[in-house]
């Protein structure tokens, strides 16, 4: 029964069921998963270059004007002439179209990355998250629960289906460049792609009262094998409890 459940949790994961020899297939699957965090770093850099260029142009122009046209005698006045109608329209439309082109370019790039952020890969490990003041409660597909500690295997995308018991929280993992609010009455989701074993901070990013700043936990990325044995051991504990409960039936029950 337990093995069945565990198996069902990973049916979307061909490479788990595959024997060790099929490493070529394993590689091809991993390559298909685009990492939004890497996409973020790339687009962020691009946008920074873009805005720095615009900023430097405006700043240098302003500084040059300030120096070149400084007042030389007290009674002096500026000598700018009114613009002709053609100039008025030109100086409005041309910059407007230049800005608009840049806007659309960035919107397209942003949308593309957003698509990666929102399209959950098929082989993801799905974990349920229920947040509350001030804790993160995770439930794995086999019923294992953890608190403020999300253990995940390296090399498999993880999707969180999130809701909240009391107020709004936001599950923020800075290292994976992702956050999404969890709130009562709605289910939201986020996914991320842990590739190397390690520990990452999860911290609340939506103000939730007194201990908002203390509402943090860890994402622990474990090597595949370690994760599997941890996962099975935890599931076994769960089954032991269930058996015990069923052994001690209350009075009057069959």
């Amino acid at each position, binding site marked *: 029964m337990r093995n069945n459940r565990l198996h069902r949790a990973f049916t979307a994961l061909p490479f788990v069921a595959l024997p060790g020899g099929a490493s070529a297939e394993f590689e091809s699957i991993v390559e298909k998963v685009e990492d939004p965090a890497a996409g973020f770093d790339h687009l962020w850099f691009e946008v920074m270059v873009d805005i720095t260029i615009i900023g430097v142009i405006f700043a240098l122009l302003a500084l040059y004007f300030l120096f070149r046209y400084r007042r030389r005698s007290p009674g002096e006045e*500026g*000598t700018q002439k009114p613009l002709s109608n053609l100039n008025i329209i030109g100086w409005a439309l041309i*910059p407007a179209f230049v800005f608009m082109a840049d*806007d659309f370019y960035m919107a397209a790039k942003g949308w593309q990355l*957003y698509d990666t952020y929102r399209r959950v890969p098929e082989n993801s490990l799905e974990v349920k998250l229920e947040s509350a003041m001030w804790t993160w409660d995770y439930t794995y597909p086999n019923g294992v629960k953890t608190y403020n500690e999300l253990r995940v295997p390296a090399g498999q995308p993880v999707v969180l289906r999130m809701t909240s018991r009391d107020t709004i929280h936001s599950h923020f993992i800075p290292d994976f460049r992702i956050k999404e609010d969890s709130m*009562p009455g709605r289910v939201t989701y986020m996914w991320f792609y842990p590739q190397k074993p390690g520990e990452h901070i999860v911290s609340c*990013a939506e103000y939730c009262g007194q201990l908002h700043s203390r509402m943090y936990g860890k994402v622990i990325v474990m090597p595949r094998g370690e994760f599997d044995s941890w996962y099975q051991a935890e599931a076994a504990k769960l089954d032991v409890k269930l058996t015990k409960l069923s052994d001690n039936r209350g009075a009057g029950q069959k």
Partner: protein
Amino acid sequence: MSVLKEWIFTTDHKKVGLLYLIGSMAAFAFAGFSALMMRAELSSIGPTITNNPGDYNVWLYFHGAAMILGFQIPALTGFLANYLVPLQIGAKDVAFPRINALSVWLFYMGLILALLTFVVPDPPDVMWTGYPPYSTITFANTALYTFTVLLLGFASILGGVNFLTTIAFMRAPGIGWNQLNMFTWCTFAAFILQLIFVPVLGTAVTLISLDKYLGTHFFDPSSGGDVLVYQNLFWFYSHPAVYVILLPFIGIVFDIVATFARNRIFNYKAAVYGGVGGILLLAGEVWIHHLYVTGMPDWIRVGQMVTTLLISIPVGLLFISLVGTLYKGSISFETPMLYALSVVFLMLIGGLTGIPLAIVSLTLHVSDTYYIPGHFHYVMAVAGTFAIFGGVYYLFPKFTGKMYNEFVGKLAFWITFVGVNVIFFPMMIVGVTEGMPRRYWDYAQFPGAEPYQYWMTVGAAIIGVGFLLVLFNWIHALFAGPKAGNNPWGSRSLEWTTTSPPLDHGNWEEVPKIEEGWGPYEYGTEKT
């Protein structure tokens, strides 16, 4: 006693304006003090000056609410609008002087209510955004927040009715729409936004108090409500509110730059109809960028990413006009001009760092980190405050008849200018690199943020010194400043044609005569 009575019951737009100035500066002082307390707390990891995160949350609530609703909006649409608009359009007063007096009374009542934060038990800790369900389940006094917002909002609505009527119908004969000062245009646009959007905010905060105190379930999902309705209502007002602040402050910056460059506004029509008009058109279609990580449907997130990016077009046109006004000018660098030019610089940084925030996929990481307060302090908070201070310096000779000390003015400017950059630039960096989330009383899980936090606190102390120096300069000049002439800056604009200070009621002996071809920025032509 009679002096007090005269000020309280005044219907003169200039006195009402000055009352707004005094009240908003008081709000600025208290909100600034809470900022210093927060910075002191954050200077190192662990409890620094208070063991109680609740204290920090109250300071943070008060800092945000009072700075936006008690300082910036009243200083710009209360003080500057009241003082300048009738003078710039050659009117004797606003259209409804008694309603004007009522709005300043409501403003003071709102201010007193806000200051009760420091007196009542369980003061509000709901942040200036007041998101439910937290604001409806907290033990804190959310009603104080609701009624502060309602009073200040009501004052804004009355101001909107008043100023739209005044600008539309009370211009001196001969002043057409294309001869208005940029500040008047921007005030006109800002009040259109206030009139449309403030009622939505009023609704949102009222529903919160109904939920909390009368047991309704607007935002309670367990009874069929929805928590996100509030955030939509709130930001439907509060993003346009950013432009309610931005428009008047960029308007006063235009007027200051034109005066001290003694030059016409470059491409005035593009600035007014493209810049100000474009912002009016787009203001109400971008609020979702505050809800990028709340699980709103993807189509609206992507849609409003595009509208938000398009805001760069009107803002860009305003920028081109602003920088272009320097071209072939005759530029001098008195204190108001330094503030105005620094606003150009601050807005350049703040505006451009807003572009990644428009892009929904980048916001998934930086939303609710220190990058956000870094960005909006540059573009709105500090730029707006510097524009207000520049405006007060600019008008100081007009409303007091005295001149401030130029050296102290410039010294104080440079101290504050250094201070704000020491705070807010590292703030943006630590938000992106460390992912340091905002609204944190402590940050043990982000040890990498500590050096940044330390220097930000140093910056806050520098700003504190700078602002005290400004205050000293003003008060000293008020009592001991040398007499200023009627037009110390050599401006062509109408407000400088009257005496300093202007006549008590009526502003001019007779309605100013407007010659054909007159304009507030017609420099380099024969004086008429």
